[in-house]
């Protein structure tokens, strides 16, 4: 306990906390990406994956709470260090500042804040499924069957969700800022934890750069593919369920809409 207090009190200790939580969050970013990329398979693939996660509430909530505490620690340390850094130079320079600094390093607080805002939106959008913010309708109504069992149609939710251009734009902006955050943060964390020398540093920075680009391409490919037409047919069918009230089979609701229109 004493050790933890001593660590938290020192600026170096807080940087260890940022680096370690950064590693955990990066681990999630990669795992989440691999999960999401299943959208490029048949609808059943990602639906059964989502159903599998939902069917293990202990695991799911364990991971969620672990991640939440990492996010909290990362942000508290970030805010405290940023305030410390600002207070360490009350009067700035007139002749230009931060000579020779890597430009991405200057926007960590900004990119982090945008990521945080995005994470909140993302949770409301796809996890809490708030109908008001997705520009489509009530995602709760998207159901399909998997081996005879009724389950949430996550595939349809993703396709319908990203077919809304401004939603895709929001995701792409957030992914760009995540890229900036990672392309500095991934190498920086090795420095914070003390794993660096003149031989390894160029390799570490190059690897961080490559990994951040790969993560960006992976995430960005999903909204881009959907806007380009991925899963359009499936989405057409699913969309009917959204306008029907209460839940009916897609065919009858399309017929209903058609009858309304004919009147």
């Amino acid at each position, binding site marked *: 306990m004493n050790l933890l207090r001593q660590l938290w009190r*020192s*600026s170096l*200790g807080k940087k260890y906390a940022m680096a370690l939580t950064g590693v955990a969050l990066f681990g999630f970013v990669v795992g989440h990406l691999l999960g999401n990329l299943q959208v490029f398979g048949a609808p059943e693939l990602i639906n059964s994956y989502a159903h599998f996660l939902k069917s293990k509430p202990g695991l799911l909530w364990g991971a969620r709470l672990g991640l939440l505490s990492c996010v909290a620690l990362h942000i508290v340390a970030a805010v405290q260090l940023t305030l410390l850094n600002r207070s*360490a130079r009350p009067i700035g320079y007139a002749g*230009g500042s931060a000579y*020779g600094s*890597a430009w991405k390093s200057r926007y960590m607080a900004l990119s982090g804040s945008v990521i945080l805002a995005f994470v909140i939106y993302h949770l409301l959008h796809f996890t809490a499924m708030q109908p008001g913010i997705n520009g489509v309708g009530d995602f709760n109504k998207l159901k399909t069957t998997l081996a005879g069992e009724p389950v949430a149609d996550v595939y349809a939710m993703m396709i319908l969700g990203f077919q809304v251009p401004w939603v895709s734009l929001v995701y792409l902006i957030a992914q760009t800022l995540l890229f900036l955050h990672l392309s500095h943060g991934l190498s920086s964390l090795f420095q914070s934890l*003390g794993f660096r020398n003149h031989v390894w540093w160029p390799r570490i920075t190059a690897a961080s750069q490559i990994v951040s680009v790969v993560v960006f391409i992976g995430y960005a490919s999903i909204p881009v593919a959907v806007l380009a037409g991925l899963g359009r047919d499936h989405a057409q069918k699913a969309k009917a369920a959204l306008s029907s009230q209460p839940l009916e089979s897609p065919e009858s609701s399309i017929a209903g809409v058609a009858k309304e229109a004919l009147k």
Partner: protein
Amino acid sequence: MKVTLKVWRQKDQKAPGGFQIYQSPELNPNMSFLEMLDVVNEDLAGRGEDPIAFDHDCREGICGTCSLVIDGKPHGPHQGVATCQTYMRSFRNGVEIVIEPFRARPFPIIKDLVCDRKSFDRIQQAGGFISVRTGSTPDANSILIPKENSDLAMDAAQCIGCGACVAACKNASAMLFVSAKVSHFGLLPQGQPERHRRVTAMVQQMDEEGFGACTVTGSCEAVCPKSISLDFIARMNRDFAVALLKGGPKKPSSGGAG
């Protein structure tokens, strides 16, 4: 040649400061930057004005007394040299040069361009030394030190403690200075007994002085007149973690000898 100077003037620590514009008299391009200021000051004194206060001592890049942020870069336009080794031929005839003091909360301004860097002394006093006399120069090879270690230790020992790293860093972090001082001893056999106590004490003092934290921007390395590498900061981060995990030195047991 002639230049225009935009200089920060501040009467004392409490008074608010501001920029003043001065025209230099005719200059020799081979004057050092500090000699240029001397000439400007003579001119000011001749006109009954208060000369510009600035820090300097050795004027050959070894004492770390000169400072100045010149056009936004500590120690002027070149890499790996101090202000005192910067020459007027590096500036174009007739340009305006902005001269500011090193700025950081732990470096309060005393007057004009002179700031108080005693916070660095206090960090040194917290642990930047070896407590026992290590004797005069030993015979060569009587203490064996791996070549890489002695090279690295000498790289770290190059630090002249000028504070340019703090001045350049957007966070006013002193990590490059502290890590150089920590590594200089930490790499040599004489520094081993106090290695952990040294790094914890110096880091603690650094935090108490109110310096910012490192965000690996690279500014410090870019302006360091001795080109000290960011690698040393990683080394300090590692040493500090090991020191905390191992804990303080054990109390000697109370039993007598034998």
